[in-house]
């Protein structure tokens, strides 16, 4: 990594550090390099940016930080000699920011270097694996139960009319949310973003209608009870989520990769091709096999490129058109000229504004949907303020604030 960047003022406050292994022990080693807490904070911010913003894998992130440790130690050999046994904090001659740059810049440059090298340093699998889905549903249901408790306290007071529908609501909402995320993650690599977003929006509408019908069926029997009884409901869901975390093994946390070349149709096709004796097939058969291999290469490239999120559809199609033309002129197949489609997709330079722009579009859609619900609710209450209208208005404000935050980030990028 480049360690000759211009010195800048440190900016270390308010750093949320990753708190799960292997990061605490890694951060302890960073701190031990020359007994500096500021170094540990710097590394924590790099880890946060690499994992959360750039979606780097844990292994790649650990490797990047491990490369930094000797750089910090070499910068202050006297302090490094004190090591972790030194009881007091040391003030390094040059801060980590002065040596290596701002954590966010360091993380961005590291991610760019990985992209340039076509390195498999990024998470490209779905966020919701079967295991995380199983845990996320009761986990989210617990959180939704708490929100339901709060909203019922504000709107109905200490006594509410319970029904099976009300009790099932947190679980149904959590299940819907996880289903929508899982669906989007599965179709995103297969379709252009606009089509994937439209199908996901359609599924949201369909699930909302289905849930509304379910709740209307589950309105009886009704009984009056204390609002506080929603608290054990939240705790129950949380306990289920906790038990599932304990029950499911770490091995089950592995990511499904339906596009793993080893198991993909293309790999099978390559194996078939390699078994074909040379000269035993006709030219027409060769051409059709070559076309089939190119077609499969294109399919795998599109899937890998769409998974990256920072490649707009137009750039993906342009890259494919260029690759086709290059292979045609070179009288060779795409795999001969471009190697693995996944490696080629990883090596293309991305546009950091693309995921932000997409996020802003989704937030705009959500804001409009909440605005419509608010207007309907306001009209139903005779254009007078009520607690449900007030809560919906608060939700709208939250949606608009997050949208503005995304717009600000987009402007900062441009």
């Amino acid at each position: 990594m480049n360690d000759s960047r211009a010195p800048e003022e440190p900016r270390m406050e308010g750093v949320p550090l990753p708190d799960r292994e292997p990061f605490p022990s890694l951060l302890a080693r960073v701190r031990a390099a020359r007994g500096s807490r500021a170094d540990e904070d710097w590394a924590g911010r790099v880890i946060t940016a690499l994992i959360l913003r750039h979606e780097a894998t844990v292994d790649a992130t650990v490797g990047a930080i491990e490369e930094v440790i000797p750089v910090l130690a070499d910068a202050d050999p006297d302090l490094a000699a004190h090591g972790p046994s030194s009881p007091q904090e040391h003030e390094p001659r040059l801060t980590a920011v002065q040596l290596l740059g701002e954590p966010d810049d360091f993380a961005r440059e590291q991610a760019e270097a990985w992209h340039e090298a076509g390195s498999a340093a990024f998470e490209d699998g779905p966020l919701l694996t079967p295991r995380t889905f199983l845990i996320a549903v009761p986990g989210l249901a617990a959180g939704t139960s708490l929100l339901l408790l709060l909203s019922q306290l504000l709107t109905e007071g200490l006594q509410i009319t319970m029904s099976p529908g009300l009790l099932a609501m947190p679980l149904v909402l959590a299940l819907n949310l996880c289903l929508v995320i899982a669906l989007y993650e599965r179709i995103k690599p297969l379709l252009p973003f606009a089509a994937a977003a439209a199908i996901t929006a359609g599924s949201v509408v369909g699930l909302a209608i289905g849930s509304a019908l379910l709740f209307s069926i589950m309105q009886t029997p009704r009984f009056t009870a204390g609002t506080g009884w929603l608290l054990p409901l939240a705790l129950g869901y949380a306990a289920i989520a906790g038990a599932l975390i304990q029950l499911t093994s770490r091995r089950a946390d592995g990511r499904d990769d339906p596009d793993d070349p080893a198991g993909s149709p293309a790999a099978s096709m390559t194996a078939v091709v390699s078994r074909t004796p040379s000269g035993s097939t006709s030219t027409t058969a060769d051409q059709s096999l070559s076309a089939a291999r190119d077609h499969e290469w294109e399919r795998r490239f599109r899937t890998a490129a769409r998974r990256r999120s920072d490649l707009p559809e137009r750039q993906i199609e342009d890259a494919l058109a260029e690759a086709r033309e290059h292979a045609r002129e070179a009288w060779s197949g795409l795999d001969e000229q471009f190697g693995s489609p996944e490696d080629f997709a990883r090596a293309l330079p991305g546009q950091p504004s693309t995921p932000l722009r997409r996020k802003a579009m989704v937030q705009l859609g959500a804001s409009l949907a909440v605005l419509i619900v608010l207007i309907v609710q306001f009209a139903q209450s005779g254009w007078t303020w009520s607690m449900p209208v007030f809560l919906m208005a608060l939700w709208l404000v939250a949606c608009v604030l997050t949208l503005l935050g995304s717009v600000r980030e987009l402007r900062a990028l441009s």
Partner: protein
Amino acid sequence: MADPIPAEWIRALLPAAILAALAEQPLHGYGIAQALGERGLGTPRGGSLYPVLGRLERDDLVTSDWVAGDSGPAKKQYTITAAGRERAAADRRAWHSAAHALGADVPVHATALEETAR
């Protein structure tokens, strides 16, 4: 006969070599690969060439346009920008410095790159 240029040198020199080739005339991807091959810098495969072209375009050192092909589909043609020419000149100076540091007055492999750059 000149010694072959080590593969790792060619990888490192690829952005500079592409700029040098484009300093002569606008070219499409395959044309760039051929131009580099003709000058003894090896013919890069598409998988190495296009990511570098993409980064040069992102850094505003080259621009690209789709132009209709004479007898085939449209081709994406790359043109060097003013900033790209400055970078190519800087690369040439850096190459001379590196050659000088290695103790060579006229390094054998510099000739190919400089010819491409002119």
